[in-house]
């Protein structure tokens, strides 16, 4: 294993004295596999999560494909909090958190009163429940005919607090981040800052979202929904598929991880946030490029050290062209390989960059680069090696994970092999 690792660097902080932060547990629920093992297999095999929608009635949409999580069994992971205290997104978040702490080898006794951050990112939260409430109102012709169980659980803050309740962790800062499709990276970055500050040693961070009518209708209306499959960076790409799932990562101070002999997947080297301050929905080349540069600076990483980029790579005309241009702006004519896991997962919204970060961690752990599937012909506007269709074995030490959101928000994360950084 790559992370059975070269001996720990003697320092516990970076040259500027910052505390180092590592990933010691991963929880993934996705349309291509649940749990580290299945998810890794899915990424390696280039599996597609696309399947007919079961969550809501798609009559009249003219299409019915999304990347739903099949056969999700919340009761496997959620033992304490009643399942109807949360919607589908909350169930994904809690299940992934339970998976992540189990994977990290942390027991409830280890967590308990420990001060921690729990930060779940989301785009739509429990918008599926809001859709059900609207249906109830329409059916009854009465705005008060709403199921109280749903009314109580729609606020996005619950995505983080319900994890604390399930894992019996009272002494936490429950910061749900709703910066849309970049929220997963935002949350991981926040955990990094909280641990770097010295105020906590542990953070459970990531993102969760559930397939819902709102997102499906929205992207259909925008003409951004592909009729068949997602083809990021392909000349003939036609848009996204909506997706769902959750990715929760255990971030831990290096001291804490070493002291308990935890397995270390990767080190969180840094991140960058930039705001375009330009347009409500369009991606912005300069904003993305600035975010990448901020992340590289924060990580103390040179451009030529990046082994691959896990792109935002939604498969829309606008995103992929703009993101490619931003990558070339930063990296010049020979950019790193750039892959889009959304070709497999669809766009899982707030979970997307968290699942992307887990994919990057697993790529470092297992020394491979996941593919961009459904790829036929690279768009000349996206002159990148997208690792078409087949995963490749490769030496992977440092990886960049991109995300962007409506409202002009970009969040870029840099992960690296622990112990090998010069």
């Amino acid at each position, binding site marked *: 294993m790559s992370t059975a690792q070269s001996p720990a660097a003697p320092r516990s902080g970076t040259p500027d004295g910052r505390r180092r932060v590592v990933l010691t547990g991963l929880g993934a629920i996705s349309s291509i596999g649940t749990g580290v093992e299945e998810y890794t297999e899915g990424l390696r095999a280039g599996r597609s999560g696309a399947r007919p929608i079961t969550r809501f009635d798609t009559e*009249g*949409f003219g299409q019915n494909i999304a990347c739903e999580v099949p056969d999700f069994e919340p009761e496997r992971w959620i033992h304490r909090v009643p399942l109807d205290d949360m919607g589908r997104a909350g169930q994904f978040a809690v299940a992934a958190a339970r998976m992540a702490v189990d994977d990290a080898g942390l027991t409830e006794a280890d967590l308990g009163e420990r001060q921690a951050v*729990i930060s779940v990112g*989301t*785009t*739509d*939260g429990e918008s599926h429940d*809001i859709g059900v409430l*609207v249906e109830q*109102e329409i059916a009854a012709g009465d*705005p008060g005919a*709403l199921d*109280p169980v749903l*009314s*109580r659980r*729609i*606020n*996005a*803050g*619950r*995505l983080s*607090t*319900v994890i*604390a*309740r399930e894992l*019996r962790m*009272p*002494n*936490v*800062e*429950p*910061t*749900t*981040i*709703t*910066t*849309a499709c970049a929220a997963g990276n*935002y949350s991981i970055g*926040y955990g990094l*800052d*909280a641990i770097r500050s010295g105020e906590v040693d542990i953070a459970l961070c990531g993102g969760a979202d559930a397939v819902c009518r*709102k997102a499906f*209708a*929205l992207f259909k*209306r925008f003409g951004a929904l592909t009729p068949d499959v997602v083809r990021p960076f392909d000349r003939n790409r036609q848009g996204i598929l909506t997706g769902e799932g959750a990715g929760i990562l255990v971030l831990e101070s290096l001291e804490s991880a070493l002291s308990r002999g935890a397995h270390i997947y990767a080190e969180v080297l840094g991140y960058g*946030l*930039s*705001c*375009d*301050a*330009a*347009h*409500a*929905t369009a991606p912005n080349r300069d*904003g993305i490029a600035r975010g990448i540069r901020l992340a590289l600076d924060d990580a103390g990483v040179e451009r030529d050290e990046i082994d691959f980029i896990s792109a935002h790579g939604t498969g829309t005309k606008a995103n992929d062209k703009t993101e490619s241009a931003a990558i070339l702006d930063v990296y010049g004519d020979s950019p790193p390989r750039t892959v889009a896991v959304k070709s497999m997962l669809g766009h899982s919204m707030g979970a997307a960059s968290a699942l992307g970060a887990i994919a990057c961690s697993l790529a470092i752990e297992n020394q491979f680069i996941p593919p961009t599937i459904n790829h036929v012909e690279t768009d000349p506007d996206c002159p990148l090696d997208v690792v078409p269709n087949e995963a490749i074995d490769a030496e992977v030490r440092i990886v960049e994970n991109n995300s962007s*959101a*409506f*409202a*002009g*928000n970009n969040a870029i994360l840099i992960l690296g092999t622990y112990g090998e950084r010069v």
Partner: protein
Amino acid sequence: MTSSLKSPAATPAALPPETLVITGWSAVSPHGLTGRAFAAGVRSGAKTSVQPDEAYGPLPSPEVCLVPGFDIKGLLGPVGTAKMDRLTALTLVASDGLLQDAEGNRVVETDGRTGVVLGISMGSLENVTNFLKQSYTNALPFHVDAGRIPFGSLNHAAGATAIRHGLTGPNTTVAGGRVSGLLALNYARRLMGQGRATKYLVGSAEEFSAAHAWIEHTAVLPGDPSPLLGEGCGLFVVEHAGTAQRPALAAVLAVETRVDIDDDPGTAVTACVRRALAKAGVTADEVWAAVPSAAPTAAGRAEHEALTALLPAEALTKVPSMELLGDTSAAAATFQIQAVLSVAEGEPAAAGRIALVTAVDRDGAVGCAVLRLLDPNLAPNSDPNGATA
């Protein structure tokens, strides 16, 4: 002036340079469109509830605490406002009040690393429920109003604030209901502490709508009344004491949060307050003013009881109850801090004293902030008139 009688801590210069300080604030609230209106309303203990316009349609409660005279086009102009959600509009008007004087001149400097972080509950429920109603009832389920779509993104208000004022630093939206204002403040503190931003616009916002009212009405737990709802947006400018460009009104000594995992909010509030006081390095006896969220729930009553047991009795009477604004949900914690600042502004004895606010939320989050009130007149380049936009 009576500065010779005041604690040295009343001057910003006595603070460690990395201390987060509040150097300005604005409020769009049921008391009015400005911080001045808010401060005057809080100090007078004015009631704000009104009978809502019939345009809202049927509502579960006969009264609501609305921002008076909130005409979006009149306040923000015709461009880009035709389909704007109320939450974004409240936030933008508050941001204008924060950064500009009454004539629209920019009075707060910003740079490429000025950040924005806004606390919310679930964004504009009016926008998302209308969108879904269109999807369910129009001829085809995707025949929805595209012009309203951008406003339905939960991060839109924060992003729109950045666009309006050209703020390219970290831009974040956090969700935590009544605690979201404290989560946002802590988020800003953390990111500034890590050098990601030079200063922050930080606050929280909630809009009133029929959709919000009916969801809150049906969410009420057995035994609790249907809430009198409020709305609004409160924003602060926060900076580090060592680099602050404007007089500091208060220092943020601690922001602590917790989750009530045992359906025992009183115990959670007690633990959270104790930790916050310890982190701030002050004792309960030193608290001059304390402002609970006054949530109209069992948790809100437990919060009040916990503070009564912990703090000097007079601290809980310094600031009129937040009930006067209605349950302003996500806007609440920011308004609570602003209510303390409003009262302190009129009381010379407040400078140097400790203020504490707490919040409890339906989803289990609990929060507490501890502030030291400062005398802005003691700071260099004092501009008390500019401090409260």
